[in-house]
């Protein structure tokens, strides 16, 4: 589903964020991306949904080489990838429902479908009863779930989540993780960048360790300790 060959990313200020990454993630996998701050986790994700292009190497999503994608084709790649950020990126003046429906409006879904799918996604996140609340009227965990609902409402093949539990307390973090596992069990490939060692260790999934832009460890039922490596 996601393949990278010799991918490097050097930002304009000569920061080498990723260095010769080789990576293969199958359809339906659940993968943690761990590593210290600045290791390149966010950069890796941004390359996948083509928010950035690699300085060298190539990236294949679902067998398609995405650096050669024309500007017109990029939106269609993004429709097959759901993205959730640590800082939510919700529209503050729109309700939870409108925020989720937004992702469907943008792809010009018919109104009745917007109605049905938005409600489904919010129900799945356990937010059916708070759909008319503004983001400012929701807790951190609830806002994060609105983001996940928005990322999922288009039924993407890949879900990228960047520190989805970053500013949540551990129990809420675990709740979000369970939601992600649930999504994964329905066939979506899920990638989670996180600092949260206890969550990673609790779930026992594939763990990719990044450090200074390189993959230093790739373990199938991995654990993560901040002091390791």
């Amino acid at each position, binding site marked *: 589903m996601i393949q990278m060959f010799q991918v490097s990313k050097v930002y304009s200020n000569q920061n080498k964020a990723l260095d010769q990454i080789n990576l293969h993630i199958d359809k339906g996998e659940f993968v943690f991306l761990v590593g210290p701050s600045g290791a390149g986790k966010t950069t890796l994700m941004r390359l996948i*949904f083509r928010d950035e292009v690699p300085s060298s190497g190539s990236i294949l999503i679902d067998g398609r080489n995405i650096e050669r994608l024309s*500007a*017109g084709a990029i*939106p*269609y*790649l*993004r*429709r097959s990838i759901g*993205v959730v950020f640590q800082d939510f*990126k919700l*529209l503050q003046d729109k309700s939870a429902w409108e925020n989720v429906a*937004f*992702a469907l*409006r*943008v*792809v*010009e879904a*018919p*109104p009745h479908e917007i109605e049905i799918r938005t409600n489904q996604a919010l129900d799945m996140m356990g937010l059916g009863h708070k759909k008319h609340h503004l983001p400012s009227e929701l807790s951190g965990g609830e806002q994060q779930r609105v983001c996940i609902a*928005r990322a999922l409402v*288009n039924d993407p093949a890949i879900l990228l989540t960047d520190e989805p539990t970053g500013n949540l307390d551990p129990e809420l973090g675990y709740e979000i993780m369970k939601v992600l596992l649930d999504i994964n069990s329905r066939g979506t490939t899920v990638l989670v960048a996180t600092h949260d060692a206890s969550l990673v260790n609790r779930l026992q999934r594939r763990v990719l360790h990044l450090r200074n832009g390189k993959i230093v460890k790739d373990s199938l039922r991995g654990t993560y300790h901040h002091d390791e490596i």
Partner: protein
Amino acid sequence: MMKFNTLVYHFRQSLNGFKRSGIMAMATISTVAASLMILGAFLLFHGNLNLLLQNLQGQLKVNFYLKDGASEREISEFIQGLKQEPVVRDFEIISKADALDLLRKDLGEDSVLLDNLSRNPLPNTITVTLHPTEEIRAFREKYAANPMIESSSSGKDWVEQILNLIHLAKVSGTFIVVFLGLASLFIISNTIRLTVFARRHEIEIMRLVGATNWFIRSPFLMEGVLQGIAGALIATLFLAFGYGLLQDRLLMFFPELKLLSSQADLIQLYLKLFFLGIALGLLGSLLSLRKFLV
């Protein structure tokens, strides 16, 4: 093709943008309105001058007086030349004898004065009637240079002055209109830029969830077009009202004046302004989007 629901959605968004940019939107619409109003005033002025010109057609005559020695061949070459000229509407050759007869008729009883002439002093004359043009003088000078032409004369001076005025109006009008058009473009694109800035988070999210560039641009383009249309409507209202008033005043003092007043002509002019407003809005917003959304 964009779906109808999407269009409705964009339309709401652009109305919101309108509200959000408040004073800026007002300033923009006023500028567009002022520009189009001045343009419209010029078009009206120009249209009226042209109308005046139509009524002057009979006056657009140039007389060429031929030397007595002019040969048949020279004259026919001269006439061939006239036939090639697009500005020439009609011409007439008046022989010496005909000219004398005409003069006799004009003089009536006094024509006895002519009986003592030993020879006919009048020249052969070619009288050319022109289509409305600013080039009477150039035309006259060009043909008067022919060696067989003794001298030439043209209609009243004020005809030529009106023609010069039309020319001046065209040139200065073009300048002013272009300048105001650019100013409108600039201010529209600036206003749209502000809206884009106010909605930058929304745009970021749109891109994130896979909106096409045209989807992202649409509400901004619509906002620009709405501003253009609003400006054009205001300009048309003011012009229609102002011109109506002016017409009444002028006719009060110069009842014989023929002014541009046919509904069809005026509606055509206002439609021009309307489409120009749309074009300004579209172009202005495209200008600002070019910078923001590649």
